[in-house]
């Protein structure tokens, strides 16, 4: 899992409540053998017509938001099916943080497993972030996990809460593999020793 400490990026405003995982990634894309590649179908039915044409009004189809890294959304983001394909699709598209007043529980946890930071903020703060996000490409929002703050493009900062252990794993990019990677020095040492003892390997 990629480390998450601080991110400054374009935020796409999605002032909708109850954005469910079916919207995020419709079921016909779950047959894939992959976990990535799903970004192409992120929000597929909101993003494309039946014959595959982009729907110009949809936020991620607008030039300003094509490279968004943050989503600011309404209440209860990620509800519905528990599919982990949802965070996979978001991540594959390039989304690393989602700001909302609340998240569905499973989705919230799935995000941490995949290096996406879900940030819960009070309604008035989300409204300010939403407004900032609507200013487009030049309004970059900063998410700082170390300090636990989000900052608007004009410098207004707000604190957010996050579980200490989840924060630790996220900041250090820890997962099963990540934990082994903490022993990288041991692996390096082993490899150096083995290279002398059994150079033919």
């Amino acid at each position, binding site marked *: 899992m*990629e480390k998450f400490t601080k991110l400054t990026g374009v935020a796409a405003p999605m002032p909708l409540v109850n954005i469910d995982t079916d919207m995020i990634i419709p079921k016909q894309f779950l047959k894939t053998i992959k976990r*990535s590649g799903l970004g192409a179908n992120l929000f597929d039915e909101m993003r494309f017509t039946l014959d595959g044409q982009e729907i110009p009004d949809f936020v991620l189809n607008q030039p300003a938001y094509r490279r968004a890294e943050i989503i600011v959304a309404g209440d209860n983001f990620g509800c519905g099916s528990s599919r982990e394909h949802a965070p996979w699709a978001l991540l594959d598209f390039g989304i690393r943080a989602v700001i909302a007043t609340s998240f569905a529980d499973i989705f919230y946890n799935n995000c941490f497993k995949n290096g996406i930071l879900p940030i819960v903020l009070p309604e008035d703060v989300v409204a300010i972030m939403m407004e900032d996000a609507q200013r487009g490409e030049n309004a970059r929002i900063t998410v700082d996990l170390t300090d636990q703050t989000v900052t608007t493009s004009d410098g207004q900062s707000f604190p957010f809460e996050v579980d200490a252990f989840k924060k630790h794993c996220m900041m250090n990019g820890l997962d099963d*593999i990540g934990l*082994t990677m903490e022993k990288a020095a*041991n*692996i390096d040492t082993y490899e150096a020793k083995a290279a002398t003892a059994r150079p*033919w390997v």
Partner: protein
Amino acid sequence: MTARTLYDKIWDDHVVHQADDGTCLLYIDRHLVHEVTSPQAFEGLRMTGRKVRAPEKTIAVPDHNVPTTLDRANAATMTEDSRIQVEALDKNARDFGLHYYPVSDVRQGIVHIVGPEQGWTLPGMTVVCGDSHTATHGAFGSLAHGIGTSEVEHVLATQTLIQRKAKNFKVEITGSLRPGVTAKDITMSVIGQTGTAGGTGYVIEYCGQAIRELSMEGRMTVCNMAIEGGARAGLIAPDEKTFAYCMGRPHAPKGAAWEAALTYWKTLFTDEGAHFDKVITIKGEDIAPVVTWGTSPEDVLPIDGVVPSPSDFKGGKVEAAQRSLDYMGLTPGMKLTDIKIDTVFIGSCTNGRIEDLRAAAAILKGQKIKAGMRAMVVPGSGLVRAQAEEEGLAQIFLDAGFEWRLAGCSMCLAMNPDQLAPGERCAATSNRNFEGRQGRGGRTHLLSPAMAAAAAITGHLTDIREFAPEHV
């Protein structure tokens, strides 16, 4: 120093880190990759921005999905999802800079045949693959076992595996084999004796005169099915035959490195007095040519036996035997040699090497398969195929009425176009006779290549000792 088994020695030389609870991080020397169990692992790497830690130790080859018909260059011979998996491997191998043998490469073949053939597998190594038959590589005295997809990702990223040590199990085959008895009969007989769970929690070391007398290819056949006995891995200590097999292979060491390797390899044996947690001894001369009658690899009987009755078994096995008999369409008491065969499959990572093809061709020379019989030979690799053509074996198979295929897993598992129809009965040199393994409703009898060839000619399971005494 305390006496150690071969497994102990290889293990000790690969521990990167040991936690207080005994969990170890084990270094992996060779990681083999095929198209079915790897795509999500590579996706995992991409999503996390990780690299393959040691691409030079990672070898990829497509085998499971790949059609083995001569027209396979035409992508239309593959189903859509198979094609996607093969293409994914193609891309992953190239993007991550792995050693790669694409379908178009003459060296392509079943991953467990390609590894040793190219000299990737060498004594004393740790070898893993997202495939249970990785046990095959234990024939070289390397610790080799299958892993799951998350572990594939773990190995790709870290070149290590989190492991706890297994127990030591010695399987000794004393004396010599009788004529007509092969490595396949050894390994199946062991499973028949220990059961499919007999090896659970253990690494088996096969030893004894009969094992020493086997060629490297025979030893690979033996270790290949260690997994069917439930063992994590099977091992055979390397010897002069092992060294001779490895010498000159494309990725084997050369010159001074070879000499250094040899010195180390010669230390790879179980010390006198080393402790085994479990031991079985089988007399080589007691082993007969065997076949399976049921749907578990432990359902093994000598070819001159009869189909058992559920009442021959105890406990849960009674019901399992009944279910096997129903599925296989067999009646207790019938002679195994009276079982009629529709299809013969010679191939797989168990018996798809050149010596296997030679053994089958020796039986088939100048003969014709039974009218109506469907028979195919699927070489384990493109190089095995080329060699068989050069030796004239291919012509013998073709003249006898066999299909002569390109390399792949083929009918060992029903994942490519080669499948059994419901009720179709197959004599197969592969390793699994599970329900549906070779196709839904298909019936599989496992046996050696020579016995498979004999069945193709007679149309029924056949005792090779009576059928071709001059060849046994």
